[in-house]
């Protein structure tokens, strides 16, 4: 059983930043946790009722109130400001695509549409895969995320990517993988009876291998 608070390994250009914010928060909350819980247990032990003990008649201290208002406020706002940068990188600033695909979630599968040899989506040489996303490393993969029925959530845990797929909307998600391998696609939003079966595989190739795969797929799926 893994009791560690260390995150599992991640493999995208932004995952280091995301994991970094997590560790910053882990440090801050961890220290706060230890100090406050230690104080709590220490006070419980030290001030437990004993014969002759009298409590101090003390209504408070405005100085302390200000202190423990301002310090947490500054800390959490700082965390917010630092987080904003990473959030903007992931969700707001979409880079120019190395590869564009369409991912459509439906009960209970992910359909991925690739642009085919002409490099453009929406043309007759587009081809599809079922529950598989194949992509090259070191290039931004820009996904147009759709749903055919209910809300699903496109989750690439090792890339630290998650985005709800909402029916009626085209939502842009992007990532850039830094290492070839087989990774996980999951659905992270309850979507019905088969929610548990909506897993898939993300396969990252070197650029050359991806070219080879893409060409052979396009040939196979020629109408």
């Amino acid at each position, binding site marked *: 059983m893994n009791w560690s608070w260390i995150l599992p390994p991640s493999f995208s250009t932004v995952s280091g930043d995301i994991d970094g914010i*997590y560790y910053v928060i882990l440090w801050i909350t961890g220290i706060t946790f230890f100090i406050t819980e230690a104080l*709590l247990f220490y006070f419980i032990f030290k001030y437990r*009722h004993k014969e002759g003990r009298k409590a*101090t008649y003390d209504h408070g201290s405005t100085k302390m109130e200000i202190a423990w*208002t301002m310090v947490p406020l500054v800390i959490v706002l700082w965390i917010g400001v630092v987080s904003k940068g990473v*959030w903007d990188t992931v969700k707001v600033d979409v880079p120019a695509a190395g590869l564009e695909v369409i991912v459509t979630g439906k009960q209970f599968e992910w359909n991925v549409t690739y642009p085919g040899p002409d490099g453009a989506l929406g043309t007759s040489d587009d081809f599809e895969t079922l529950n598989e996303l194949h992509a090259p490393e070191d290039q931004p993969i820009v996904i147009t995320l759709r749903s055919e029925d209910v809300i699903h959530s496109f989750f690439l845990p090792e890339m630290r990517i998650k985005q*709800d797929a909402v029916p009626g909307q085209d939502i842009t998600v992007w990532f850039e993988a830094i290492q070839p391998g087989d990774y996980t696609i*999951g659905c992270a939003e309850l979507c019905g*009876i088969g929610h548990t079966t909506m897993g898939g595989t993300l396969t990252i190739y070197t650029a050359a291998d991806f070219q080879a795969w893409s060409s052979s797929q396009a040939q196979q799926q020629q109408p």
Partner: protein
Amino acid sequence: MSTIEQEMVHAAEGGHHDHHELPFIRKYIFSTDHKMIAKQFMFVSLFFLVIGGLLATMMRWQLGYPGEPMPGGMLLPDAMMAPTPNGAIMLPEFYNSLVTMHGTIMIFFAIMPLLVGLFGNLLIPLQIGAEDMAFPRLNMISFWLAVPAGILMLSSFAVEGGAAGAGWTSYAPLSVSGEWTGVYLGQQLWLASLTILGFSSLVGAVNYITTVINMRAPGMTWFRMPLATWALFVTAILILLAIPILAGALIMLLFDQTIGTGFFRPEVGGEPLLWQHLFWFFGHPEVYILILPAMGIVSEVISNRARKPIFGYHSMVLAIIGIGFLGWIVWGHHMFMSGMNPLLGTSFMISTMAIAVPSAIKTFNWLATIWKGDLHLDSPMLYALAFVSMFIIGGLSGIFMASTPVDIYIHDTYFIVAHIHYVLFGGSLFAIFAGITFWFPKMFGRMMNETLNKVHFGLTIVLYNLVFWPMHNLGLQGMMRRIYDFTQYEYLAPLQPMNQFISISVFLLVAAQSVYAFNFFWSIFRGEKASNNPWDSNTLEWTVPSPPPHGNFPEMPVVYRGPYEYSSPESDTDFYPQTKPPPSKPPVQELIPEPVTPTPEGF
């Protein structure tokens, strides 16, 4: 006559209900006495708490032993469990219903009515010195609306297609059609039940707010009110403003399901995200409704059991108000990944980070209260201190998900489930245990057995942490929520032992609650008889008999000081009741303030 003079006359006449003995039905079933209504809420809610726990137990069977026949499963209908030669296996649609109904029942039919229905009703009139609520019949209606709501909710298990299965959050379009969930009538019963329950809460809120504003005894100024009453007052305002939004959303969804409207259905131009905005605009104040009364209870118990004034009373009041206010502008943090404009992610992140501060203020004030106190570590205090300890964890874990980039990874994982349960169980439920134990003598005239409570406390605090702490780890490993069989994902298969560990802990935790249940019922009949004030407390409810008579106070109480004057140098004991006249002050009549006409600014 002014209100106060009228009330004095009433009090002198022994309350406006005279000494006629009420028939059984009017005394116990259709009662208008706030104390009886409080008990009614308590018994019904405890029943639903048990149901909610049973639902969770079944869920945990499936998670701990995926796909294995469940003991007792053959007793359940085929719509829930698939019969096989080795026993009955849970069906995924029933798992989804369990997830949905566990959340719904615990939040709406257990925690909320316990905190607001039980403690609001029990404490508000007594703590402010009133003979009952402002509108006793409305109060009765509030309870008797909750009952059919509960019956409707439970009946949804019996209809074809089963109980609601779209999560307690009921996101559209999933919740719109049985085509997506396999649930048809059950989803509509869920909506109808919650709409009725919403009205129950609304009339209760109107009652509480009116009572607190209008019916405080002479000398009970706003800043002499106990924090429990403050918390319940602010909670009632949240209910008043938030529930109508929920009701509107529920009705819109009901229309989408039944008469073909398209509020949330994209195929006819509707917007699924609208449901989320409406639901969470209610839903976030709702979670503060679920924690504020608990915080109020904890303040009462800690101050009393530490024999020490609450540290920073005014800050505590401001923090309650601050939480209540800020709670309205954070709802989008439930929607960071929803497809909502990412720029909103940042604004909601900032407000969410800010709302951590008043909770931190309260926590530091509790710590400062026990510092240099004289801590009587009996069971109410143990439960209350456990609240503080668990709330620290729940509150700190919230910071992770408040950070939008981190939420990308942990949204909809078990990290969120851990957070929710640390604040709702570690927080609210422990506070409920503290409150029931503390006010048990006032309700029943008897004490609960202290040894049994300590046993229950010890078992619960340990087992509870064994259940919910590892859920942080499951979430960090990427295990998503509401998932019938996580072993379908290769990367999650290694989490099987931890899930089993949690499940076994849950079975033991649920079994341990029988200790409290036994103590509760046994003590009603055989508990040690209680005096008026077994805890040597200052607040007004402890000046009257246990249990108090109809009308509460034989004479109009007069309040001279705040509620937390423990270990005061002016008193020869370590407490100084609010209504005890100071030795050198002039007689009562000169102390009663001029009759006041309520103005819009308050008193």
